[in-house]
């Protein structure tokens, strides 16, 4: 059935709500890549076996990941009239006990992490589960969740990402219909501009402005692209966004395509994410079936479709011009800008193209549903909205964390992450991946926003936060990143290709305790030169890990070199 009107959408919403609250117990297993890897799929299979064998009146389903990776596998239970309960560290041997408890109207208490009496899906739907289970702590009182604000991850781990009806149930695609039938392209772009949204791919470019530039170019054809290359090692926000709530991304792209006048959209996704590719492919098919992609969407005459293009393992292909070359079937080597992607002759196959990161697109539906005014109250001035970070490395509570921009590093690492793992002392964090830098513990009152991180010598990047503790050797970290960048340099420009190689040789010598003080000076000078003269963002930022460790952890270098 094609959805043509709000009435059609409301009818689907009812179908979806019936799936989320089926009037009987529902067990949902967290099955994103991380949940599967720690045995979530075995839990699911075992539960299914028991339910099928005894033909029990229990709904079993899959959901994505709520982000508390340390506690996985996670399982949610909803019993009519009772709060949703999140179970943690579940394994297949718990399956029988879970089923037995559920049949008796309860949950296995010793596996219960917390309870959710009601959940705000932000896009106009508050799911009222119910009350009870007083012994189980509230979601809002769990330290890992307490300081978070879920806007992008509002559905993650709660709805089935492989079922479009559940997305519609929580208010999905209502923003798309509002935008396409009730707003004109200009007013959509104005809303995005007023929201203050800045690109989540790393550079923080104002999204509304990029959209306006793309819209204003005169051309017979335009493309929009979603950058799902997620190249920074240690970052997996985009993976979870796509695996847990793929329709959120598709809805954002539909609205963007309409605003910019594009008929074709592409999602460029890295080959390392097979499950995200699978779920996106399925979501696109479902959206087509409902008429949300294809011809004459919502009877407006608007045509738009999305195709997936896979990457093949090259970090530099996250860079805009290299990404376009890669989709066109060429080696991913950047070219100087201008021409920019938005220029005639600069984008995909020469057509003006808008490129945005996964999470940038994911922000669009809430901006349209709740308005730019609401959005702009979240976060800090000039840095509105929330950002998802992957908090990993030597931190106690690893996972995906969503906080308003402007939240301090110490809130993220100490309050949410509970400091170092195994009671070790945290020494620094590394943000921004290979283009970022290391920020020492004494600067943890730095608010996490685009400008403050730059001032500290690092960058926001896509949202990876890798925690280092007292046992981490900072010179080794610098060497690690330079080695990474050397391997990933496309080889086109000399400063990046040769400069990084020599920086690596110097670092190797220093680490082998054969370096001198002079080598440190050379390393700093070489780094500055690479920053100043490289062709693309890869080379221009690659020395950041060296420069920041030289600035903040000079003693570790000094201890290795001869005078």
């Amino acid at each position, binding site marked *: 059935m094609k959805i043509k009107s709000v009435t059609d959408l409301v009818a689907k919403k009812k179908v979806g709500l019936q799936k989320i609250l089926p009037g009987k117990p529902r067990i949902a297993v967290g099955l994103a890549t991380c949940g599967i890897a720690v045995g979530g799929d075995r839990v699911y299979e075992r539960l299914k076996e028991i339910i099928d064998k005894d033909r029990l009146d229990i709904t079993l389903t899959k959901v994505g990941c709520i982000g508390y990776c340390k506690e996985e596998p996670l399982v949610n239970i909803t019993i009519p009239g009772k709060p949703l309960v999140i179970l943690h560290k579940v394994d297949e041997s718990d399956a029988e006990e879970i089923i037995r408890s559920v049949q008796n109207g309860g949950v296995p208490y010793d596996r219960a992490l917390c309870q959710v009496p009601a959940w705000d899906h932000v896009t106009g739907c508050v799911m009222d589960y119910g009350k009870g289970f007083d012994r189980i702590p509230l979601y809002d009182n769990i330290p890992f969740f307490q300081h978070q604000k879920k806007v992008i991850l509002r559905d993650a781990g709660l709805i089935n990402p492989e079922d479009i009806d559940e997305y519609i149930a929580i208010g999905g695609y209502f923003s798309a219909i509002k935008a396409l039938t009730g707003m004109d392209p200009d007013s959509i772009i104005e809303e995005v501009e007023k929201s203050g949204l800045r690109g989540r791919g790393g550079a923080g470019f104002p999204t509304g402005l990029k959209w306006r530039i793309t819209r204003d170019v005169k051309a017979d054809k335009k493309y929009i692209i979603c950058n799902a290359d997620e190249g920074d090692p240690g970052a997996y926000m985009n993976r979870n966004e796509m695996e847990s709530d793929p329709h959120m991304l598709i809805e954002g792209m539909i609205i963007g395509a309409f605003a910019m006048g594009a008929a074709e959209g592409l999602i460029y996704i890295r080959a390392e994410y097979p499950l995200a590719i699978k779920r996106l492919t399925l979501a696109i098919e479902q959206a087509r079936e409902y008429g949300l992609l294809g011809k004459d969407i919502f009877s407006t005459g608007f045509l738009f479709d999305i195709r997936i293009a896979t990457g093949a393992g090259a970090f530099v292909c996250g860079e805009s011009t290299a990404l376009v070359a890669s989709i066109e*079937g060429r080696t991913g080597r950047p070219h100087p800008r201008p021409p920019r992607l938005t220029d005639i002759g600069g984008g995909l196959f020469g057509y003006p193209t808008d490129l945005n990161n996964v999470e940038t697109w994911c922000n669009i539906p809430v901006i349209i549903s709740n308005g730019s005014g609401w959005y702009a109250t979240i976060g800090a001035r000039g840095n509105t909205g929330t950002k998802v970070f992957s908090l990993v490395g030597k931190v106690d509570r690893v996972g995906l964390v969503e906080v308003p921009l402007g939240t301090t590093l110490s809130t993220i690492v100490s309050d949410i992450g509970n400091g170092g793992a195994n009671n070790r002392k945290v020494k620094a964090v590394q943000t921004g991946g290979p283009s970022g830098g290391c920020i020492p513990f004494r600067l943890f009152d730095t608010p996490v926003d685009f400008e403050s991180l730059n001032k500290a010598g690092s960058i926001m990047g896509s949202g990876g936060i890798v925690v280092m503790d007292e046992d981490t050797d900072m010179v080794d970290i610098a060497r690690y990143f330079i080695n990474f960048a050397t391997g990933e340099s496309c080889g086109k420009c000399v400063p990046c290709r040769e400069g990084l190689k020599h920086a690596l040789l110097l670092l190797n010598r220093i680490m082998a305790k054969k370096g001198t003080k002079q080598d440190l000076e050379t390393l700093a000078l070489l780094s500055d030169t690479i920053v100043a003269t490289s062709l693309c963002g890869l080379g221009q930022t690659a020395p950041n890990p060296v420069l920041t460790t030289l600035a903040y952890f000079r003693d570790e270098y000094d201890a290795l070199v001869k005078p």
Partner: protein
Amino acid sequence: MDEKTLDIIISRYEAPAGRLLGIMGEIQNQEGYIPRETLEILSVKLEVPLSQLYGLATFYSFFSLKPVGDHVITVCMGTACHVKGAVKILKALEEMLGIKSEASEDGKFSITTEDKKFTLEIARCFGACSMAPVLRVDGNLYGYATPENLPGILAEYGWERHEN
């Protein structure tokens, strides 16, 4: 890869965007590498110079031109895995498989044991960083790897300790 299979793959990519990498990715996934003959046939069918296809096969680390062993072990060398001891995991695997790692001419890291049972590779990040260090064997991810639990994991794939 026989021509019929290749034709089916090609037929799935009618639009030019993402076509070449998509097709080559599927060949890589099915065969474990990209055979030279397949690349030659592909070049004729798509009317794309072989040199361009060869350029792609060597530029992108996902593609391999050499056959791989029965099981492919990929160790994540991403940042989270690095700080949690990925190097130790790699060294332990080398020792277990009796091979020594070195980058090949095209800068790619891939070594196969003499009996062609295992191939050892590295990756940048699987996006499973919360369970660092992580390794993948034939598409299955294993988190919280330690040198001690590696033998148990590899045993699932027919690995046995050889005295040498």
